[in-house]
Every structure is written in C-alpha cells, then in structure tokens.
C-alpha cells in the first residue's frame, strides 16, 4: 500500500508536468493539473493509511 502510494504521488506529478509540456489551452491545463493533484492526494491517503495500519498492529 505504501509503495503504491509513493508511485501515485510521482504519477500525479508527471501528469502535472505533461500538462505543461503537451497542452496549451488554459482549461485543458487546469483539468490535467487538477487531475494530477487529485492522484497525488490519493497517493498521500494510501501512504498515510499504510503507516496508520502499521501503527495499529500490536507491537
């Protein structure tokens, strides 16, 4: 779960960079940047859940 979270963080950033390089129209760029940030947030949630689940395990 943590690895997937990290990969999603990076994927979201690459989508944001792709929007900069490949798109010109402001609306399209905005949509891609929003999508990239949403994927990053998903990655952050997964990463956080991974560590929270680890803490909940009895030591």
């Amino acid at each position, binding site marked *: 779960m943590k690895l997937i979270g*990290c990969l999603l963080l990076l994927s979201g950033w690459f989508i944001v960079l792709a929007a900069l390089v490949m798109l010109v129209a402001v609306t399209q*760029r905005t949509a891609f940047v929003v999508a990239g*940030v949403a994927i990053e947030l998903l990655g*952050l949630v997964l990463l956080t859940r991974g*560590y929270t689940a680890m803490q909940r395990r*009895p030591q």
Partner: protein
Amino acid sequence: MNFALCLLCILLTPLAAAGLALIHQGLGRSRSAAHSMMATLCALSVAAIVFVLVGASWTGFPGGAAHSFQAGGTQWNWLGNEAFFAQGILREGSLGSLTLCLQVFAVGIAAIIPLSAGTDRWRLAPICLATALFSGFVYPVFAHWVWGGGWLSELSANFGLARFQDVGGAGVIQITGGLAALSAAWILGPRRGKYSDESMATAIPGHNIVLVLFGCILALVGWIGLESASSMLFYGVATEQIVGVIINAVLSASAGFLAAVITTRIRYRKPDASLSANGWIAGLVSGSAACALVSPLAAIFTAAMAGILTTYLVELLELRLLVDDPGGAISVHAASGIWGLISVALFGNHSATSSSAQFLSQWIGIATLLGFMLPLIHGGNLLLNRFLPYRVDRDGDWQGMDIRELGAGAYPEFVIHADEFVPR
C-alpha cells in the same frame, strides 16, 4: 537593492532557528531537553557545512550557471551549476554572495523542522546523516527551482503562466521541512507509551511552556529578517516596501495566535498554550508565501485560517492517523505552508497575470512538493534508516535521550520522572 539593509535582515534570520529550537525543546519531555538542543545545534552545523560545500552549488541564484535540458520545445532549468565549496562567490559582494548568506540560515531552519517530529526517540548520528542529505541535495533542488532561476520561477516565460510565488519561503523552507517531519514521524513511529494497545492516544505534555512562548517571540524577529531579505533578494521588493513585509509578519503571527487561542478556548473551555504557540508559528508560516504581495487584511485572514486549521490538524494527526508529532511540525509547517501558497493566488496582487493563471502556477508548485519532494525525502530517509537506524533502542526509550545519548540530564538537580507512561 540596499546591500546593508539586506545584510542586516539576513543577520536577524538565525533568531527564527533559535525560536524554533526553544519551541521544539519546550514541547518535548524534560528527560530529552538537552538532547533536543544538541540535536538542533548538530543539525544547524551539518546543514551549514554541507550546504556551503555542496548544496550552494546546486541551489545557484537567479542569472547564475545552471544545468538544463530541452523537452517539449522548452528549456528546463533543473539544477544550479555554480562552483563547489563556494569558490569565488564570497568576495564578490554580489547577489550571489548575499543569496548564499541567506540560504545558509534558511537551510538550517528547514533542517531543524523535522527534529520536532522526532523528539524523544531520534538518535543524534542519524539526525546528522539525514540533515546532510537534506541540506546537500533535497533542499537545494527545490530552492533552485523557486529561488535560483529554476523552472518553477520560469513558468511565466516558458509556459505563459504566472511565476510560482513563494516570497518568504513557505514552500522552499517550511513545506520541505514539514514533509521531512512527516517522513521522520512515519519512520520513527510513536514514542513508547503514546498509544495504548487499543490505539488510544495518551497526552504527553511539553515540559516547559514558558520557553515555548518565548521561542515564539524570537521566531517572529527571525521571520521578519527572513521574509524581508528574501523579498529583496528574490522578488526585487524595493526598500521602502519592506515596512509592509514587517507589518504583515507581525499581523500574521498575531492573527494565527489569537485564532488558536479562541478556537481552543471554545473547544476545551480554556486556551491551550502549546496549541496557541503552534498557531503563532502557523500564522507566520502561512503569511510567508505572500508577505510582500498582500494587504494587511488579507494577511490577517490567511493567518487566522492557519491558526484554526492547525488546532484541528494536530488532533487529526495524533488521534486518527496515529502520527506522534510532539511539536506539531507537520500541521504547522507543511499544512499551513500549503494554505499560504494557495492564499497567494487568492489574495495576492497580480499586476501582470490573471488570478486563474496564478492559481494554476501555485498548484503546480504544490503538486511538485507533494509529488516529487515527498517521495524524494521519504525515499532518502527510508534508505538511510536501513543503514543507520533512526530510532533509539528500547532501553533508550525508557531512559530518555539525555541519559542514553549524552550521559547526563538537562536538569540534574531536579527530580526526573521515569517513564510513567510506559508499564515496565
């Protein structure tokens, strides 16, 4: 630019580090107080040496030499390419030398932020190693992108957007430090006794709230110097406009503090001193990004929102997400910093660009921090943790870091309580 005034402002900046050090130390436990201050000085020392020897070369400065590549018909300036060991730069009396002088203190401030999250369990040797990685590579990369003429500062020229605005270092210093704090807290895990077997949190109060509140005042003076110097150096703010930066800094701290006082008064019936101190710093952090770009009213609103947000986030992290962050660094520096970057687009004075273009640029900067800097920081910390474990052993957990690592406590004439939170 007024060289003498800029230098004077830079000289105030170490007070921000002093203030944060007192806050971290006071919010930790008495049995790790000396260790906390030692860790701060170790981190500051390592950060200064590694940054001047290596990091400054990659950070660069606007108009300086840089590594770049061509992609999509655009030049991507991604890393500074100045001489290593600060060769030649110090005697010039130029923008480069002033930038280096400010960055030495700025990287120190960023490097001590994660110590707050690792209080009472993070060993000295791994702290030095993590700081070396942070100040030698992690910080310089993002500082170059924003303050050194890198691609985020060229969004306007290369992509027709607005320049990513981070005047006082909310992203460069605070969020990178806050993300490093999150990474350290995840790797270290909570202090022993912080959570019961049913994952119920136990309150482990800070040992000296007077030092914490005094640290807030010191931090304000340092912040004024930091924001004024970075405004002049990286955004060309005129000398006569620095008064506005100073006023905004004072208002930000005040609004963040009062918002936290009122919020905790309403929620817990009495104002919480430690959360109010966090509100003070959160106000300063959120106000950093737009310190030279917004009106006093906007600065007050931004900081007040940060103060309120911080009180809730500290609780969310501790109670729901089981992240043990004794100093509240993640909420105060990372979350408030992100809010500050957004507030630039909401309230900033964008003379040349539209508000929507500024929004887009700010989100690209935030996406870079979350999508690139966080994995970079966390990956580096995980790697270092494999070679040199970050966390103290079980005996150290029980004894406290002062005895375990330094051999003597901070308050030898006081009665030091054993770990009453942990059943032996």
